[in-house]
């Protein structure tokens, strides 16, 4: 019985082609994210392995990496180096110290891509290999010498002997370029810029006088590393960890990979969405094929095949298709991993890379997922195949099995009601299903809503597709009308095809509504929440937590400025979860608008904090409550809740600048709010600040409108990334549209033949099919937009407490999007339409 399976697949190859492609693409995306993740992880491993090459022992203060914000570390006294050096078996010991160091190129602009960080460190004056190789020039010695990485050297067109301005967190100096450094054969580490100084210069420059971040040693050839580690542990202060160089490299790679792990997860979510979309296409194809083969299946049944054998036959077919497509998908995944890297780079995320890493695990997971998804999707059609009655072999017409209208309406409405109900309970009453967190409940509710809409969709499809095609009917004689009727003809097929598109479009719409609403919220914050006219912030988000406080000190002195508020940001563990901590001086609290305050937000001192009403309520805090905070540098501290506030411009935990200074090592301003003196125009004010800002190239001073548009750009960059990642789901769904069109052309071959015989031109046939395809695509897009708006509305309503005050629907975008997807549907049908138009009229009429 299975001997014919392979032949059946080959005979159906055109019908299966699109299914094959959609499985392969879905699997490629899954494999691609794994490959990308593994490759990035491997790159970091190589990076740290290289950095620790030649290091036998690493000595470093232990700290809670969860509490480390923007590269914060805990340092130790450099006197420890001497203690370590004295331990028997230690050959050579040296300290490492580093921080952010922005190199200003000869053009006055910051060197590097802008997306990757700017690092600085010391080049230890030791004989051992420290991971840095001198490409040209000499090692920096003395307070005015610097070496830079090879990529920056070439990228900025530098020459040895050039004078470079370099900025650290709170220092700025000019250095003479004395050397060019490489890193184990590479000229750059993941696109970051690197500036290297001698140890004392680095300590001063990075505000670490008498301190180092870590100590590295080599051991003598006769010593045993493990023994030396034990001996070194004896002499270092408490809280300092001694490990082998190798495990330090692994540990640091692991920490970085943990931090970027969210990225892989984020990508995988989109990969699974794409695969989910392809299930609709797989299931649709097998359903159609089963219907089209009803007579053949019925004949098998009439000849004595059992129902189970028929099911199994279809399942074996799907197994082979799934398996072969998945294997090809893994191959495509390698290409896609490269594509993902480019996409993330465009979105400003540059990560180090190495040769593509295809692990056995990736291959197994991708093939397994692809095959299982295919099998599951084909199961219901396979079951239906078994229900073909032997008598159907004798029937001439193709059977169109119709489910009950009422049954479908009932189940669809029930699913939809359940989904929406659960959604509201989860979002607004914080009710969750037993054993599920609220977020999972909301996810499940969204899924039920999607299923409800999908179930009801066949009932709405005939009306909506007719309505969508209506504008084209008068434009195109009968072809428009035929397309209109054809798209409304198999509501279930149209609905299933549209559903695949609906999912991708719904997610895009959610993202678009979120982006527009975030933009609306930002506008709202600036318009009603902030009274400062100018705001200073870091030029580049990756150059550290902020910029030197000297900037604010200088600006505060000029007469055009009436008030200046300093704002800093870091993280701490509050009530067992890591939260952002905002800090500001009293002037800052004057420059943002509070709609309502209980207690106080200014004058909190070192022991008080304030929080917005909603957060207080969620944590069940009352004024006067003593709350435990855990900081990276100072450990557990208790702060008293002294103020509750509501402000369009701020939310979350707020402490005074004094408390910030007491608990955090680096003192950098994240933002400086500037209120101009009375009578000073915006332009005059900006002109007055400009000469100061020029001295601080990492600072950007902008008025509210400029900031709004900057933030808009950032929001849309993220939106672009999400759209890019959803493009695969959309592409698969469009292949699904082409697939459905191909299969319905196949079913309607005789009809097309008749139309051609009585005088429809080839062009007319093409136009009819393309329009039908466009209408199906537009229908899916409209459902998706409607669903997306609804889900975004519900989510935004639930996130009101988090500061999402606005709900903005970007109508223009959405309408243009629907039209565009309709157009893409037309494009998707170009090839099937061309094939249909080329059908031989006589063969078509004689077709069964």
């Amino acid at each position, binding site marked *: 019985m299975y001997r014919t399976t392979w032949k059946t697949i080959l005979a159906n190859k055109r019908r299966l082609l699109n299914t094959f492609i959609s499985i392969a693409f879905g699997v490629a995306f899954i494999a691609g994210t794994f490959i990308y993740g593994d490759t990035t992880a491997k790159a970091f491993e190589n990076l740290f392995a290289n950095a620790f090459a030649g290091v036998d022992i690493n000595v470093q203060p232990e700290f809670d990496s969860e509490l480390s914000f923007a590269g914060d570390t805990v340092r130790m006294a450099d006197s420890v180096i001497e203690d370590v050096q004295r331990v028997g078996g230690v050959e050579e010991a040296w300290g490492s110290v580093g921080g952010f160091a922005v190199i200003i190129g000869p053009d006055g602009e910051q060197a590097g891509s802008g997306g990757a960080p700017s690092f600085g460190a010391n080049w230890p004056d030791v004989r051992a290999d420290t991971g840095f190789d001198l490409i040209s020039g000499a090692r920096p010695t003395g307070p005015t010498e610097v070496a830079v990485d090879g990529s920056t050297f070439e990228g900025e067109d530098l020459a040895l002997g050039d004078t470079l301005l370099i900025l650290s967190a709170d220092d700025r100096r000019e250095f003479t370029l004395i050397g060019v450094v490489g890193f184990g054969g590479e000229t750059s580490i993941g696109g970051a810029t690197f500036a290297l100084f001698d140890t004392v210069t680095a300590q001063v420059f990075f505000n670490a006088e008498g301190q180092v971040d870590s100590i590295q040693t080599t051991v003598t050839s006769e010593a045993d590393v493990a023994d030396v580690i034990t001996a070194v542990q004896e002499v270092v202060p408490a809280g300092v960890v001694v490990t082998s160089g190798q495990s330090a490299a692994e540990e640091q790679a692991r920490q970085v990979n943990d931090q970027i792990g969210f990225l892989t997860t984020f990508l995988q979510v989109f990969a699974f969405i794409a695969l989910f979309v392809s299930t609709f296409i797989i299931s649709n194809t097998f359903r159609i094929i089963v219907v089209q083969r009803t007579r053949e299946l019925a004949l098998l049944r009439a000849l004595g095949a059992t129902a189970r054998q028929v099911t199994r036959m279809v399942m074996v077919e799907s197994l082979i298709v799934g398996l072969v497509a998945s294997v090809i998908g893994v191959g495509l995944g390698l290409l896609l991993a490269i594509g993902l890297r480019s996409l993330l780079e465009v979105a400003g995320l540059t990560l180090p890379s190495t040769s593509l890493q295809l692990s056995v695990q990736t291959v197994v997971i991708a093939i397994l997922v692809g095959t299982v998804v295919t099998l599951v999707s084909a199961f219901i059609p396979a079951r239906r195949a078994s229900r073909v009655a032997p008598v159907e072999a004798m029937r001439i017409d193709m059977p169109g099995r119709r489910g009950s209208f009422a049954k479908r309406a009932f189940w669809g409405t029930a699913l939809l009601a359940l989904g929406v109900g659960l959604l509201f309970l989860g979002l607004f009453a914080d009710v969750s299903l037993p054993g599920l967190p609220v977020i999972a409940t909301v996810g499940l509710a969204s899924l039920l809503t999607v299923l409800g809409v999908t179930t009801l969709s066949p009932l709405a499809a005939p009306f909506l597709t007719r309505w969508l095609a209506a504008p084209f009917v008068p434009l195109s*004689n*009968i*072809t428009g*009308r*035929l397309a209109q*009727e*054809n798209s*409304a*003809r198999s509501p279930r097929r149209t609905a299933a095809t549209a559903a695949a598109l609906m999912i991708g479009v719904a997610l895009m719409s959610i993202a678009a509504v979120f982006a527009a609403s975030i933009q609306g919220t930002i506008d709202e914050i600036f318009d009603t929440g902030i009274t400062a006219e100018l705001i200073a912030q870091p030029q580049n988000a990756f150059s550290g937590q902020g910029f030197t406080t000297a900037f604010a000190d200088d600006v505060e002195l000029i007469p055009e400025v009436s008030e200046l508020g300093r704002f800093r940001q870091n993280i701490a563990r509050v009530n067992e979860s890591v939260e952002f901590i905002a800090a500001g001086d009293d002037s800052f609290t004057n420059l943002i608008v509070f709609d309502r305050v209980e207690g106080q937000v200014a004058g909190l001192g070192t022991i008080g904090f304030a929080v917005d009403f909603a957060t207080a309520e969620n944590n069940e805090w009352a004024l006067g409550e003593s709350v435990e905070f855990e900081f990276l540098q100072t450990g557990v501290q208790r702060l008293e809740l002294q103020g509750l506030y509501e402000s369009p411009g701020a939310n979350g935990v707020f402490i005074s600048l004094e408390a910030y200074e007491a608990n955090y090592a680096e003192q950098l301003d994240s933002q400086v709010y500037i209120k101009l003196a009375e009578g000073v125009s915006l332009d005059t004010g900006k002109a007055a600040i400009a000469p100061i800002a020029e001295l601080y190239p990492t600072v950007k001073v902008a008025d509210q409108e400029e900031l709004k548009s900057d933030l808009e750009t950032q929001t849309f960059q993220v939106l672009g990334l999400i759209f890019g990642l959803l493009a695969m789901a959309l592409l698969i769904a469009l292949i699904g549209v082409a697939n459905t069109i191909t299969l319905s052309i196949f079913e309607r071959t*005789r*009809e097309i033949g*008749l*139309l*051609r*015989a*009585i*005088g*429809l*031109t*080839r*062009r*007319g046939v093409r136009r009819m099919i393309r329009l039908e395809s466009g209408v199906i695509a537009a229908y899916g897009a409209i459902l998706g937009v409607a669903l997306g708006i609804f889900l975004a509305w519900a989510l935004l309503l639930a996130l009101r407490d988090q500061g999402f005050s606005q709900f903005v629907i970007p109508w223009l975008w959405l309408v243009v999007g629907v039209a565009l997807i309709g157009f893409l549907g037309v494009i998707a049908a170009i090839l099937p339409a061309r094939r249909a138009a080329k059908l031989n*009229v*006589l063969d078509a*009429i004689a077709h069964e």
Partner: protein
Amino acid sequence: MTNDIRAANGSDAARIENGSKLYGEGTARITALDGVTEGFESGKFTAIMGPSGSGKSTLLHCLAGLDTLTQGVVYIGEQLLDGLSDRELTLLRREQIGFIFQAYNLIPTLTAEENIVLPQLISGVTPDRDWLDQVVSTVGIGDRLTHRPAQLSGGEQQRVAAARALASRPKIVFADEPSGNLDSKAGAELLEFMRLAVSEFGQTIVMVTHDPIAASYSDRIVFLEDGRVVDEMADPTAERILDRMKLLGV
């Protein structure tokens, strides 16, 4: 053979000159038509008969511009089909030729009326209302016009198809076993209507059939065997046809 071509006879609605049609290559070569020359007179109902494989359907398809001859030429009226592009052939079929097929004659998504005027809808011209009413009432489906094909009986469907073939007042109507799928009563009604179309409206019809009763509605029968015209019969009756068929060894 090209020197043998002469202008189509003015009274022929369709004409085939020295038409041959070959399928396949080498030993698998089949000669479906073998030097057929035949005219189909305007205003007459001609039946083409012959055993299975005699080439009668091929002849019809070539006459209708649905298939091309390997050799020889076909005229529809004065128009030589040879050398027409697919688009020109399509327009010719739309404007000058009507079709009635054995089965699957209608577009299921359109109403009976829309099916009838489909060729006009395709070309975007307004159908001649009076003529349409006349055709519809003659064919006897006036009360079924808003129905879809699935709601019509087989006989009704074929009559709608016949009405469609006449609606554009084509130069010639080709029918391929039009009553083949119908019971005898429905078949008789359809053939009666076709007969009426010829005698009352002056329509030209060429019909392929293997049914002597169906053929008896025609003015003239052309007998085909092995791709050649072997005989013809004017004013046939069912008995005479049967006798002739026995003679031809069908």
